[in-house]
């Protein structure tokens, strides 16, 4: 596509969103649903502008992001470590596999009531829920990437005089990096879901609590406006992670596909 048509391509991406908004508007005025429960887009927009003028959105979003990212970082570090150990130690894998397999399909939000008992209402409970949810995709992806390391790369490094410890970090982890970044992308999505779910159940602050509160009070235009803010922030975080991944994986085959 010639550069002069670039803005058009962006316009085409907006079209589905406009159609979605139009359908929403029509549905809201169709009489099929009570317009009090489904406010039309102009009302939501007005609520959004009102919200953005005040500090609620920014303050609560900052709290939620803090919880989501803390859980993500802790879960990421622990997940990479556990995945690496599982891939390299048969003994460790034998112990951990049943636990990982057992908790893999468990919805982590089911554990939030338990965390409330342990840690009370607030950040620790939310961070724990995020941590657990992020842990599993990180373990699975790291394990897969480390196990797929070609034997000849390890042998080459051994013949050059590198220790097993060096090889763990500089060969196995480096080889697993594309998979780890995939795991991180999955975990990023989970981190928002779990942080907000935990806030709805057990918190006095955060965007999840705000959404829940507006819903309880029947302020649906404000509720949808807050949800819209979460969608935008989650989308931008995902894009930022993708850009970061592309820049650190320039050596990887996947970088070819993206540059064309």
């Amino acid at each position, binding site marked *: 596509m010639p550069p002069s048509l670039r803005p058009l391509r962006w316009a085409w991406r907006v079209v589905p969103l406009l159609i979605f908004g139009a359908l929403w508007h029509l549905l809201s005025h169709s009489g099929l649903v009570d317009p009090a429960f489904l406010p039309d887009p102009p009302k939501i927009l007005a609520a959004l502008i009102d919200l953005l003028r005040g500090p609620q959105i920014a303050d609560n979003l900052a709290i939620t992001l803090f919880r989501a990212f803390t859980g993500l970082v802790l879960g990421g570090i622990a997940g990479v470590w556990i995945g690496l150990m599982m891939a390299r130690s048969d003994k460790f894998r034998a112990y951990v596999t049943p636990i990982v397999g057992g908790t893999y399909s468990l919805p982590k939000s089911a554990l939030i009531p338990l965390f409330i008992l342990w840690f009370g209402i607030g950040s620790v409970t939310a961070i724990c829920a995020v941590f657990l949810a992020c842990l599993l995709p990180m373990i699975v992806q790291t394990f897969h990437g480390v196990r797929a390391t070609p034997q*000849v*790369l390890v*042998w080459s490094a*051994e*013949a050059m005089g*590198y220790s097993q410890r060096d090889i763990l970090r500089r060969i196995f982890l*480096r*080889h697993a990096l594309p998979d780890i970044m995939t795991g991180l992308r999955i975990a990023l999505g989970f981190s928002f879901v779990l942080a907000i779910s935990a806030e709805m159940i057990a918190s006095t602050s955060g965007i999840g609590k705000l959404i829940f509160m507006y819903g309880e009070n029947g302020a649906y235009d404000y509720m949808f406006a807050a949800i819209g803010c979460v969608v935008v922030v989650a989308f931008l975080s995902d894009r930022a992670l993708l850009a970061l991944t592309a820049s650190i994986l320039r*050596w990887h*085959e996947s970088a070819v596909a993206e540059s064309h």
Partner: protein
Amino acid sequence: MRNLTPKIDIRGVSKSYPTDGGSVLALRSVDLAIEEGEFVSIVGPSGCGKSTLLYVVGGFLSAEGEVLVDGRRISGPGTDRGVVFQEYALFPWLTVRDNILFGLERRAMPQAERERQAERLIGVIGLKGFEHRYPRELSGGMKQRVAIARTMACNPDILLLDEPFGALDSQTREVMQDELLRLWLDMRKTVLMITHDVSEAVYLSNRICVMSARPGQIVEEFKIDLDRSQPRETLFLSEAFNRVRNEVWLSVRRQAVEHAGQHAA
């Protein structure tokens, strides 16, 4: 005076792999002594365990029997033995220059000297201008040049080559063989090469060992005494070259046919 200790002494090496239906014997009691500065090739039917032997000498696989280097029993991989694999084994996340520096990193020299050495090796393999490319941006021949340079960077006494040119097209393979020959004539390192290409073995080696089908044993040896200063064309068209090439080829062929016969029976 001749040094009585061989550079590499392979003594009664046997190797078996566990499989679902018991264990498979890959090597049976292989004995082979390689003198310092010798270029020895091992040829044989595919799947005969010749690469397994190389991995045992590299110290990557443990086996029955023993392998001595300079009279000392090896217990694992070491920087005295550099390896070049068929599939290049470059680190895909490092550029050409960084792959070579990775090989230099463990050598006791100042960083500036390492960087100079890397420059020099990039020049030797003719990849000036490609220093900052990643392996995926290189052709097969270029990748193998980098792999050889990275191995040379460690300055090993012994080169272990596992079908080093097997994945290259025939033109590139010939160029690489000439480069390896030149390198070997210059440095006179001890080389153990695995190949299935009989002409390649005759062109490069002092001695060729023919291995039987699985379980691999060395069944025949050929001393090659050719004038390496001749150009490739002269050598390939000479009677001496072709006579020994045919002898080795027939020997390998016998092993392959016997193996096929065993399976038919």
